[in-house]
C-alpha cells in the first residue's frame, strides 16, 4: 500500500462503503476493502480488471493433457507388449489417463494461482486489518501521506462509518 500512514474506516452498511470507495477512487488514492464475504458489487467497484487465474488453469490443463498422453504412449513404447489385440500406442485406451491428468494438472495450477495472486501464505502482515472484517463489518483502508491524513479522514467521516482512525507507519 502506498503512503506512510493508513486511514482505517469501519462500515456496517454496504451503500455507505460504496460511496466512500467511489470518493477515494476519484481522489486517486491507494486503498483496500475488506468484507466478511464476497460481494460482487464491491469487488467490481474496486477493481474492474479480470483475474488472470483462468490463463494459469488453461496452461495447467493443457500441460496435463500432454503429460497424460505422453506418459501412456511413451511408457507403452518403452516396453512394447501387445495387449488385448490393441495397438502398442492405443490412443482410445489412453483417453482416460489423458483426461484425468488434464483435470489434475489444471487443479494443481489453479491452487498455485490462488496462492500466488492472493499472496498466501501471509501470516503476519496485516496493515489495518480488524477481526470484525471476517464477521459482520466492512473495512476501507486508505494509504496516505502524513500531509493529507486528516483530510482523508474528514472525507471518510462524511460517509457515516462506525469509526475512522489514522494509523502511523506501514
Amino acid at each position, binding site marked *: 500500500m502506498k503512503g506512510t500512514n493508513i486511514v482505517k474506516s469501519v462500515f456496517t452498511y454496504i451503500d455507505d462503503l460504496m460511496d466512500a470507495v467511489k470518493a477515494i477512487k476519484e481522489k486517486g488514492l491507494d486503498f483496500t476493502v475488506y468484507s466478511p464475504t*464476497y460481494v460482487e458489487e464491491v469487488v467490481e467497484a474496486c477493481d474492474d480488471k479480470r483475474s488472470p487465474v483462468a490463463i494459469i488453469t488453461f496452461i495447467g490443463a493443457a500441460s496435463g493433457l500432454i503429460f497424460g498422453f505422453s506418459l501412456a504412449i511413451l511408457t507403452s513404447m518403452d516396453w512394447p507388449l501387445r495387449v488385448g489385440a490393441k495397438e502398442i500406442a*492405443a490412443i482410445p485406451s489412453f483417453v482416460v489417463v489423458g483426461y484425468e491428468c488434464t483435470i489434475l494438472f489444471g487443479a494443481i495450477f489453479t491452487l498455485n494461482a490462488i496462492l500466488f495472486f492472493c499472496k*498466501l501464505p501471509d*501470516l503476519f502482515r496485516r496493515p489495518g486489518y480488524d477481526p470484525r472484517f471476517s464477521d459482520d463489518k466492512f473495512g476501507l483502508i486508505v494509504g496516505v501521506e502524513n500531509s493529507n491524513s486528516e483530510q482523508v479522514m474528514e472525507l471518510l467521516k462524511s460517509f457515516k462509518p462506525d469509526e475512522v482512525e489514522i494509523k502511523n507507519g506501514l
Partner: protein
Amino acid sequence: MAENKQNIENNPVTYSEVTETVLNMLHKPSFGWYIQLAICISLAILGGVCWSFQIRHGMGMSGLSHPIMWGVYITNFVFWVGIAHSGTLISAVLYLFRAKFRQPIYRLAEAMTVFAVMTAGLFPIIHVGRPWFAYWLMPYPNERALWPNFKSPLLWDVFAISTYFSVSTMFFIVGLIPDIASARDKAVSKFRKILYSITSLGWKGNHKQYKHYTAAYLLFAALATPLVISVHSVVSWDFAMSIVPGWHATIFPPYFVAGAIFSGVAMVITLVIPLRKIFKLERIITDTHFDAMCKLILLTSGIVTYAYATEFYVAWFSNNSFERFQFWFRPFGDFQLAFWGMTFCNCMAPLILWYKPFRTNLVVLFIMSIIINIGMWLERFNIIFTSLAREYSPAAWGGYNFSWVEIGLTIGAFGWFGMWMTLFIKFFPAIAIMEVKEVIEPPRRKEIEHH
C-alpha cells in the same frame, strides 16, 4: 446486529449470526462427542485388527474364492466412491448452476467426499492382498523398466480415483480458507489461534483476494464437475469393459453416476439431520434444503429404476442366453434377497418422497436415507456377486460366504469414516460461513431508513 437482518430462504439471518452459529460448533466438545469419537475409533481399530489378520494369514481369511474373486471389498470400494460423489455434485455442479440451497450443506458434503474417498481407497489396497506392493499400481521409473498397463480399466481407475481424491481435497481446502480465517479471528484458546492462523494461511478477505479467489473457485468447480461424471464412469468400466454377463453394458456409466449421486445425497441427509439437531442449526439448514435434496433423490431414484428395467429389457432383447440367464438368476437365484432388497430400497421406498410432508419430516427422512444406503450397498453386491457366480460355464459356477474378516473390515470402514467426520466437525467450520453470507443481502442504510 438487528439491522443486519435479511433473508436466507425466507428466514431472517444476519452476518454475525451466521458466524456465531457456525463457530459455536467448534466450542469445547461435549461428553457425547467423546463417546461418538470413541465408538468410531473402536470400530476403526476392529477393522485394523481384521486387516492385520488378513495380512498375516493371507487372503484365505476373506471369503474370496473361485469364481467370486471380487467380493465384499470391491462392493465396499464402489459403495464408498458412490457416497463420495454427491459431495462434489453439491459443491461443484450446484455451484455452477447457482443453486442457493447448496450453501449450508456443501461443506459437510465436501468433507464427506474427501473422507469417503479415503475410505474407498483402502479397499483396493486391502483387496490386492499384499498392500506393501500397492504402489506398483502407480507409474514410476524402476530398475526393471516396467510400466503399468495403461490399456487396463483397472489402471484408469487408479488415475481416476487418485485424481478425484486430489482435486476434491484441494477444492475442500480452498473453500475452507476464508472460514478458517473467521474461526481464527474469534478463537479464544492459544492452540486454536495458532492452528487457525496457520491453516487459514493469513487470509484477510480483501477485494484483491476475493477477485482471484472467486475466479479460481469457479474454475475449480468447472474442473471438478467433469470428475463427478468421469470417476464413477471409470469405476463402472471396471465392470463394463469385461465380457462377463450382466457387466458388459453401455448403460453402466450413467447408471453408476446416478446411483452414486442417489446414495451420496442420502448420506448427506444421514449426516445433516443429527448435526442440525445437536448444534441447533435450524435457522441455517431449513426445510427448503431437505425438500431440495429429496427432489434430487427422487430424480436419481427414477434414473436408477429406469436403468434396472433397461438391463432386463436389453438382456431379453439381445436374445443372448447367458445375458438372459443372468437376469433370471438375479431375481430368482441364490442371491435373490439382494435383488429384492435393492429393488425395495432404491425403487419403491423413495416413492413416498413424492408426498411433500414426508420431504420435510426429519424422522422419515433419516430412516429413508439409511434405507437408500442399504439398498445401494445391495445394488453393488448384486452386480458384482451374481455375475461372477454365474458366468458362462456351469462348471465354473460357485457361491460365496462372508468371512468375519470381511464383515469386520466393512464395519471398520464406517468407523474410519465416522472418526474423520467427528474430528472435522469439532475442529473446522462444518458449514461454509463465507458462502452462507454470500446469499444474504448485505445490510444497506437506505433500506433500514426506508423501513
